[in-house]
C-alpha cells in the first residue's frame, strides 16, 4: 500500500514545489476567477431577491473556466524537457502517476476556490458559512481535477491543446457542474426540485467512478 501512495506524495511534493517557485498557475487562475466574478457582478447587477437563483451559476461558471485554465497547465509543465517521458521511465505505476498529478491539480484548484469564495460572497451577497457549500466544493473540485487531469494528458499531445481540452472536458464533467450548482443553490438558501440527499451522493458516486475509470484510461493513453 505504501508503495502505491509514496510516488503520489512525491509527485504532489514536486508540483507544489514548482508552483511555490513559479506561482504562475495559482496567480493566473486566481486573477481570472476574480475577473469573472467582477464582470458578472456588474453585468447582471444581482439584486438580493435574485441571489439564490443567480449566485450558484455565477460561482460555478467562474470556477469551471478557471479550472480549465489550471488543467491546461497540468501536463504542459511535464511536457517541458520531456518531464512526462521521464516519469514514464520510472518503475511507478501509471495509476500512481495519474493520481499524483490529479491530487496536485485538486490542491491548486481548491486553494484558488477557497481564496475566491469570500470575494464572491461579498460581491453577490451570500453567506459562505455552510457545510453543504464546503462539501460541495470539495466533491465537485475532486471530480473536476480527476477528469481534467485525464483530458489534460490527452489534450497536451494535440496541436490545438488549449481548444481541445474544454471541448473534450465539459461534456464529461457536466453532471458534476449541474450537481454542484444545485447543491450550492441549497447552500445559499434556495430551493431545488431534487433534494440535497440525492445530489450529494450523486456527486460522491461520480467522483468514485472517475477515480476508477480515469487512471485506467490514463494508463492506456500513455502506453505509447
Amino acid at each position, binding site marked *: 500500500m505504501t*508503495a502505491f501512495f*509514496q*510516488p503520489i506524495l*512525491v509527485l504532489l*511534493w*514536486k508540483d507544489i*514545489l*514548482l508552483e511555490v*517557485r*513559479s506561482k504562475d498557475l495559482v496567480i493566473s487562475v486566481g486573477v481570472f476567477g476574480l475577473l469573472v466574478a467582477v464582470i458578472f457582478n456588474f453585468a447582471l447587477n444581482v439584486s438580493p431577491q435574485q441571489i439564490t437563483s443567480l449566485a450558484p451559476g455565477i460561482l460555478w461558471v467562474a470556477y469551471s473556466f478557471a479550472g480549465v485554465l489550471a488543467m491546461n497547465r497540468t501536463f504542459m*509543465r511535464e511536457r*517541458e*524537457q*520531456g*518531464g512526462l*517521458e*521521464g*516519469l*514514464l*521511465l*520510472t*518503475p*511507478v*505505476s501509471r495509476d500512481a502517476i495519474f493520481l499524483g498529478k490529479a491530487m496536485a491539480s485538486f490542491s491548486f484548484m481548491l486553494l484558488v476556490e477557497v481564496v475566491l469564495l469570500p470575494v464572491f460572497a461579498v460581491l453577490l451577497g451570500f453567506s459562505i458559512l455552510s457545510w453543504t457549500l464546503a462539501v460541495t466544493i470539495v466533491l465537485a473540485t475532486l471530480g473536476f481535477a480527476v477528469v481534467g487531469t485525464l483530458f489534460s494528458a490527452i489534450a497536451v499531445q494535440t496541436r490545438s491543446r488549449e481548444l481541445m481540452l474544454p471541448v473534450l472536458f465539459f461534456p464529461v464533467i457536466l453532471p458534476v457542474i449541474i450537481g454542484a450548482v444545485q447543491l450550492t443553490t441549497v447552500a445559499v438558501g434556495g430551493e431545488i426540485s431534487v433534494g440535497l440527499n440525492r445530489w450529494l451522493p450523486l456527486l460522491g458516486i461520480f467522483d468514485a467512478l472517475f477515480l476508477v475509470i480515469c487512471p485506467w484510461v490514463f494508463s492506456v493513453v500513455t*502506453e*505509447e
Partner: protein
Amino acid sequence: MSPAKADRAVRVQGLEKSFGDWPVLWDLDLTLDWGQLLVLAGPNGSGKTTLLRILSTQVKPDFGAVSIAGFDLKRQPNQVRRCVGVVGHNTFLHSDLTCLENLVFYGRLFRLQNPGKTALEVLAQVGLEHRAGHRVRTLSNGMQRRVSLARALLHDPLLLLLDEPEVGLDGPSVAMLGELITRWTGLGRSIVMTTHNLELVKSWPGSQGHLDNGKVRIGEDRPSAVEETGPGL
C-alpha cells in the same frame, strides 16, 4: 544493482516497428553481452532513437521479443525500467528545481534508500557537485546534459541507453563521458549508445554498429555484438 543472472544484457529477436506505413525497424535481431558497449551510428531517420526508445519501454514494438537483463519488455516493463538508465534528447529535468531536487525527486520514484546522498554521489561523478543547489534553468546546455546523465546513473542501472550523449558537451565533458563509459563497462554493466560522431568513440572500448534501412552492420573488427540484421526497406 549488480548484474543480473540473465546470460545477456539485451536480447532482441525479430523486432519490427513501423510508424503508419513507414517501417523503421525490420526483423531486427540483437544480442548484447554484459560489460559491452554498443555504439550505433546511422543517418537521420534510420531508427536509432526508435530502437533505444523500444529498449527503454517508451515505445511498444509491433512485433518481436525483447528482454533486458532477462526481463521481458512486454510482461515485465517495470522490472525493465529498474534496469535501464536513459539519456535522451530531452533532459527529463524540471528547470525550476535545483539539480539536487530533480535527482532526489527521481530517486524517490525509484525508491532509493537515501536519495539525497546518492544524488550528490552521481552529481560528483559528472563533476557537478558544486552546482547541486542551483536551479537547472541557470545551467548551460552542456551542464544540463551532464545532470541528465547523472539522473540516468542515479538508480545504478544494469544497462545504459544513451541517445547522442555527447551533443552539447565540451571537450573535458566528453572526456569525462568516455571515462564514465569505460568505468561502467568495467563494472560489468552494458551500454547501448547512438552517435553521429564515430571518430569520437573510436578510443572507447566497444563494438560499432551501423543502422540504416532497418539493417545493422557491425564494424569488422568487433563482429560479436550484433548477430543478425533484417532486410532493407
